């Protein structure tokens, strides 16, 4: 028995590989497993190559994993296009389509070949079972269920539900296709040692969802009443989700004519007094920056989600990267601080989004959420959200007494001044991008400008004490440390577990508040460390560099493992670095 299984599958667009992956994760959820499903496509609109990788386990799954345990190859050309995204090792079980015409000893993979390579006539089996090639993916599901003991009853239940509508003949054909895969596995056994161990967390309900839907749902929970945005990969699903849902909560949504109008409308809605949001990806963030600056100077709450993809410019819209941290932290001109939050998983996206609204409202500021393509679009099995742990914050409004002589931008000790909105009698004021005095009247006074900058910057200081936005893992007395963020943090955490299993003491810091830099929290984390490695998916190592800009001191050896987007960082690679640090 194994308690962790990584399956990679690739084929051409019509092969149904991705829907087979979705079936598997759905069945795994029904059976109480943990899992992450990532999908990867070529950039074609339709057709072209597609792949998915499913990591399923009886234990919580922290990342999509490294080397595959199982590779399903419907045709070699498509499989090989995914390169490092579907890495095959000596222990990988390779299952491929007989029709590709390659002998097991001649498969086009680097030497040494995996020890188990099996050619299966999947197309022929689909044709004989269902009379259509479309049933091929159910043959694949049968093979996987048979060889690896995966959720067979739940897969079958899924097939029945899916095809019930399509008539008895179609349903039976697909059931036969699944059964033929199971039969084939039984006749060519691999041994029960490769079976996935039963799940242990069967209690309760488990859902399959992705980061973009989580974000939309969390926004509604937080009380978001307006969304303005523009379609952009890989953020569009947030707008689509809210486009279906927000009206039900008395809110509204604008698919604007461009990115600027999208954030502009959101800022307008916030001025009008409601919680509002926009979402985009890299190129859209570049366009939105001027209005982000407006929201900062007019002190208007706003949540701006940026789902990072490969950049710069159009870059790689369907691939993950963590290279927008500079853009988020330093977006727009002038002296400003805009808080930047980063979720570490699909499940985490809920709390981070709620927190983004809370911080925006409390501090009257735009807040950026830096998601990434992986978190946004991967499917994860999650438990229902326990909302009892969340409190919701709304902006500080003026009291009736304050409205008698209302001063919108009044200097206060905290830097936060009560904010009115149109419709509130006595609260009339002028909001402006132009520098202004306490009343909101335009000014060119250097003295007032300095005081206003001070107000707008100082009010963010309490954020840097938010220890709940930082995760500490591992050994308190370790001298080796890791720092990682976003979807890559799950890789670092797994590497930490692996290292500790080898007896190496390691500590890990995961900042979910990635900007402003919480100097004190880093100082405390760094203090006992001799060596520290920042692990992130950008060429420059943007978090590493931002920490260096602010941290008063860093460990004697302070390095970064930085890789450009779309190049997976497997836990084993981080483990190797930890071992090297332990030796040095």
């Amino acid at each position: 028995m194994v308690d962790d299984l990584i399956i990679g599958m690739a084929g051409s667009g019509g092969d149904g590989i991705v829907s087979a992956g979705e079936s598997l994760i759905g069945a795994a959820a029904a059976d109480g497993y943990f899992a992450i499903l990532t999908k990867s496509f070529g950039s074609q609109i339709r057709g072209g190559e597609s792949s998915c990788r499913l990591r399923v386990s009886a234990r919580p799954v922290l990342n999509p994993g490294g080397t595959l345990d199982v590779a399903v190859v419907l045709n070699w050309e498509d499989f090989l296009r995914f390169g490092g995204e579907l890495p095959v090792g000596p222990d990988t079980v390779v299952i491929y389509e007989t029709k590709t015409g390659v002998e097991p000893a001649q498969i086009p993979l680097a030497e040494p070949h995996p020890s188990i390579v099996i050619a299966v006539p999947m197309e022929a089996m689909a044709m004989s079972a269902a009379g259509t090639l479309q049933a091929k993916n159910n043959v694949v599901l049968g093979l996987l269920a048979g060889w690896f003991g995966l959720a067979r009853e739940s897969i079958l239940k899924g097939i029945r539900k899916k095809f019930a509508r399509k008539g008895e003949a179609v349903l039976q054909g697909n059931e036969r296709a699944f059964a033929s895969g199971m039969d084939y596995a039984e006749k060519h056994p691999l041994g029960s040692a490769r079976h996935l161990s039963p799940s242990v967390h069967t209690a309760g309900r488990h859902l399959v969802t992705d980061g973009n839907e989580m974000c939309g749902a969390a926004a509604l929970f937080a009380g978001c009443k307006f969304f303005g945005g523009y379609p952009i990969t890989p953020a569009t699903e947030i707008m689509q989700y809210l486009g279906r849902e927000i009206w039900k909560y008395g809110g509204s949504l604008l698919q604007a004519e461009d990115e600027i109008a999208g954030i502009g409308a959101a800022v307008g809605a916030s001025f009008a007094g409601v919680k509002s949001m926009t979402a985009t990806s890299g190129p859209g963030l570049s366009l939105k920056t001027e209005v982000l600056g407006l929201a900062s100077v007019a002190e208007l709450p706003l949540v701006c989600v940026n789902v990072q993809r490969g950049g710069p410019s159009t870059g790689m819209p369907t691939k993950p990267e963590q290279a927008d941290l500079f853009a988020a932290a330093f977006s727009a001109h002038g002296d400003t601080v805009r808080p930047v939050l980063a979720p570490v998983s699909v499940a985490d996206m809920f709390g981070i989004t709620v927190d983004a609204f809370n911080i925006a409202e409390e501090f009257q500021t735009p807040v950026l959420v830096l998601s990434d393509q992986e978190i946004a679009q991967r499917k994860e099995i999650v438990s229902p959200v326990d909302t009892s742990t969340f409190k919701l914050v709304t902006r500080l409004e003026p009291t009736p007494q304050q409205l008698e002589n209302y001063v919108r931008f009044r200097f206060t000790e905290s830097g936060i001044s009560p904010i009115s909105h149109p419709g509130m009698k006595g609260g009339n004021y002028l909001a402006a991008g132009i520098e202004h005095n306490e009343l909101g009247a335009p000014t060119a006074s250097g003295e007032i400008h300095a005081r206003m900058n001070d107000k707008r910057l100082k009010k963010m200081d309490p954020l840097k004490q938010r220890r709940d936005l930082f995760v500490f893992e591992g050994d308190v007395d370790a001298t080796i440390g890791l720092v990682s963020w976003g979807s890559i943090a799950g890789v670092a955490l797994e590497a930490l577990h692996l290292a500790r299993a080898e007896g190496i003491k390691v500590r890990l810091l995961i900042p979910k508040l990635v900007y402003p830099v919480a100097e004190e929290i880093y100082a405390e984390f760094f203090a006992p460390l001799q060596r520290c490695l920042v692990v992130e998916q950008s060429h420059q190592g943007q978090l590493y560099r931002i920490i260096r800009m602010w941290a008063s001191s860093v460990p004697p050896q302070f390095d970064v493992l930085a890789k450009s987007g779309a190049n997976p960082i497997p836990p084993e690679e981080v483990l190797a670095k930890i071992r090297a640090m332990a030796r040095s």
Partner: protein
Amino acid sequence: MSTECPLSPEVFTTKDFRSSLKPIWCPGCGDYGVVTAIYRALTAIKRPSHEIAFISGIGCSSRIPGYTTAYGFNTVHGRALPIAQGIKMANPELLVLVAGGDGDGFSIGGGHVPHAIRRNPDLTYIVMDNQIYGLTKGQLSPTSPRGLKTASSAYGSMEDPVNPLLYVLAYGAGFVAQGVPADMEGLAKIIEEAIRYPGFAFVNIQSPCITYGDADTQLKTQKTRMRKLEAEGHDASNRLRAMELAQEYGRTLYTGVFYRNPNPPPTYDSQIRERQQNLRGKDMALEQLLRKESDEEAEVPAAC
């Protein structure tokens, strides 16, 4: 909703809408007349100032919200319309005014105008058109006539101007008018009518720049040049005729209402309210995410 302009028991005077801020405009600027016309129109509309949101972009004329007592938002260059639409969508009860210059509306923000118009939110967009960039000290604007020599066109403009009236008519605006500060009474009336129109209303105001503008655009020449559409017997329900007259932009100074849709279509805000009412509380996906009990059919997708 603002279109119904419910009568307030209160009595308003222009003082209720005039703020204490002193305009930065040059003496003799047409915008003084525009803001006065707006005070008068708002006095007639009888909505208290806290129910009015006045949004602008950047430029001399975009300072205008600060000179009123309404909730003002002096935003960034060219983005007044999207921001105003967000305000109106978030709170349809507000009376929303948008203002800016010709550069704000037809150059940097030109891409937003057709989209605001096709959505048809119930707001009024006032452009103070002076054919020049005044705040940056006299460069070409999108409505500058061909051949105009300015600080940025030493040898004369080689471009044709845009025609704001023809643009917005072609985009489908339901209310299109033009006014001049020289005719204060007429201008106040036009703005009032624009506010009362249930839907997107556009008012182009030939508001001369005293410092960088042409001599023949100034207030005193407006009085002799202007031709009132009403006096010429124009039927404002005739959109094609309105477009014909609009082609005279830059040559003949027509004032009054070019076009008023006699059958105003539903506004964007009314459609939003309707959708919210129809969908309120139905099949909420968030509840699925929060629900802890098992629902056996729920989430087992299958291959297709």
